[in-house]
């Protein structure tokens, strides 16, 4: 008996019971589609998490905060508790952090609270500004333009890509370079660029000033990419100090208060040499008495979440396949029951028990193979449809365009193998029943 003879005979029987076979295959197709799409979404979302957080460079970053319990931004993250005796983050901290093994660099991250909003000359709308000061040697990842020329470069900004899109330049960020933004300060702003009340100003004049804002014109020199920095405006660290330095006329003297130096940096960004060392460095930072959050830990939490989703979706898919396999069992049992007479003929003509068993196993395997193959192909198409739809949605929400449903070759192939294997398993009992039938009994149609 040759292998292709088994296939040929099994196909004849499948064709004989066309409608029943078609319905069984349909059930297998549906279960395979569920399997492929569920796993593709789980797999794709894990990859999407990584993509949303940027390249592996972004994953090597740790954000060091004053002494706080480390919280996370993940879906399962906890809250952060502020410690009143928190250590201030300053240049001495940067020095301490820089000497931790595997730290490539450490730089301050400052939030300029004094800037409230901005608008673009000739642009539409006004936007809440989240402004950060950074040293010039920190690579932001730019879509257009350049980094700061020096640490003290004034009246220039690097614009986050999300703002560029909001301003209507998402597709042409380069054209933003050289355009002017008007930064609007908080009321009573006393930093650089503000015309503060004179020493002899009346109380009324001072009060009036405290209720007014200052507008600071800045030129866009760069636009970030669509990674983690896309929601901020960046200024040079030197100018950040100037923006946060309050000035007061006290008699004949002009007094200044460098609030950035007084308050310390909002955070210090530590860059680790490799992703595998992030955890060790984070532990070292914690031992120094600082809080820390890392993109990696956030990604890991998100991945834990997506793994949980994967397990749930996978379980749904497996249940669907088991249900379809039960359909195969039913179909094959009915076939064995109907085909007793044919089994008897094969046995009377000299077929061994093993032959009969193989014949029915091949038939159920073929049902699984056809159902699995068609299901995988349809699953791939559905995956592509989900990607097109989700990419359009993500794009409109300002996220990085990424494939939510990824159907790698191993998934498509694996789904076919799994469905075929379930087909064989489902066919085992009916095939066994068929093989052990007495030939004479089978010839009489089971009577």
């Amino acid at each position: 008996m040759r292998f292709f003879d088994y296939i040929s005979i099994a196909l004849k029987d499948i064709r004989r019971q066309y409608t029943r076979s078609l319905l069984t295959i349909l059930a297998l197709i549906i279960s395979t589609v569920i399997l492929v799409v569920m796993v593709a979404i789980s797999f794709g979302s894990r990859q999407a998490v990584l993509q949303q957080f940027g390249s592996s460079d972004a994953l090597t970053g740790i954000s060091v905060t004053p002494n706080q319990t480390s919280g996370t931004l993940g879906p399962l993250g906890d809250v952060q508790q502020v410690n009143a005796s928190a250590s201030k983050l300053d240049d001495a901290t940067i020095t301490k952090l820089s000497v931790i093994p595997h730290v490539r660099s450490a730089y301050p991250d400052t939030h300029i609270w004094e800037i409230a909003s901005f608008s673009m000359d000739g642009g539409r709308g006004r936007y809440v500004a989240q402004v950060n000061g950074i040293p010039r040697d920190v690579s932001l990842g730019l879509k257009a333009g350049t980094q700061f020329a020096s640490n003290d470069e004034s009246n220039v900004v690097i614009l986050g890509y999300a703002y560029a899109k909001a301003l209507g330049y998402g597709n042409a960020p380069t054209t933003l370079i050289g355009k002017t933004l008007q930064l609007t300060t908080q009321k009573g702003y006393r930093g650089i660029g503000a015309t503060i009340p004179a020493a002899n100003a009346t109380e009324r004049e001072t009060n009036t000033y405290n209720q007014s804002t200052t507008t600071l014109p800045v030129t866009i020199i760069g636009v970030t990419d669509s990674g983690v920095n896309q929601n901020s405006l960046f200024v040079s660290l030197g100018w950040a100090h100037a923006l946060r330095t309050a000035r007061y006329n006290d008699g004949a003297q002009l007094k200044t208060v460098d609030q950035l130096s007084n308050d310390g940096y909002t955070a210090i960004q530590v860059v680790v040499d490799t992703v595998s060392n992030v955890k060790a460095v984070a532990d070292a930072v914690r031992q120094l008495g600082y809080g820390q959050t890392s993109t990696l830990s956030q990604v890991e939490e998100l991945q834990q979440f997506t793994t949980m989703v994967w397990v749930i979706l996978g379980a749904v898919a497996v249940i669907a396949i088991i249900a379809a396999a039960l359909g195969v069992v039913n179909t094959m049992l009915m076939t064995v029951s109907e085909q007793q007479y044919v089994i008897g003929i094969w046995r009377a003509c000299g077929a061994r028990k093993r032959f009969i068993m193989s014949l029915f196993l091949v038939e159920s395997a073929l049902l699984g193979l056809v159902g699995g193959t068609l299901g995988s192909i349809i699953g791939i198409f559905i995956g592509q449809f989900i990607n097109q739809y989700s990419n359009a949605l993500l794009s409109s929400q300002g996220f990085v365009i990424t494939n939510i449903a990824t159907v790698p070759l191993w998934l498509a192939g694996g789904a076919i193998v799994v469905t075929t294997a379930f087909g064989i398993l489902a066919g085992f009992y009916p095939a066994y029943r068929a093989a052990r039938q007495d030939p004479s009994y089978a010839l009489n149609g089971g009577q």
Partner: protein
Amino acid sequence: MGMQQNLPLLKIEDVTKLYHRGQETITAIGHISLTVQRGELVAIVGPSGSGKTTLTQVIGGLITPDQGRVLVDGKVLKKQSDKELSAYRNQKIGFVFQNFNLIPYYTAVENVAIPLIIAGKRSEERHKLATRYLEIVGLGNKIHRRVNELSGGERQRVAIARALVNRPEILITDEPTGSLDSVRGQEIMSILEKLNAEQEMTILMVTHDLMLAKRAERIIHIQDGQLVKR
């Protein structure tokens, strides 16, 4: 070889087959002993329900007797494994059943090729052999017809072609002309006689047609599961 030539081809020793229906035990055949020599054309006659078909199925290895033994070329059938028994049914025995036992959704040539598939013959060889045997039984022009589209006589001939295609030593036919008119019946009988005469094929022919039985070399009478001497 000489030893084998001297042995009877078929020896049945004290064979009994019982059937159980609820509490009731029915003796299909009881204590039957007989010997068939190589090349004999033997008719087994008896009324319906006398045990003729059971006897042929015991000889054909389709039924295992409850008592006694069947020896073919000196080998006991009962002791054989599934592999040996299947090979015996495939190579040594050709069955023509009373109700033809053809697969209705297969074509004539596909039905005839069944024993060849089991024997592991290649597709082209199977087709060639099956076609030749269908031509021998006069169905060369209907090889691709589904058997459920053929007449009773044509189906009978397909069944004969299938029984002969592996060139068995023993041909067992159960009412070979039972469902045929007299002309077709004579044709089938002539084919069997020709096979017996020209190829020295041993033929066991179950029939209740005494006229047909008289054309055999030997007639075995069976009644109520017992051999009857006449």
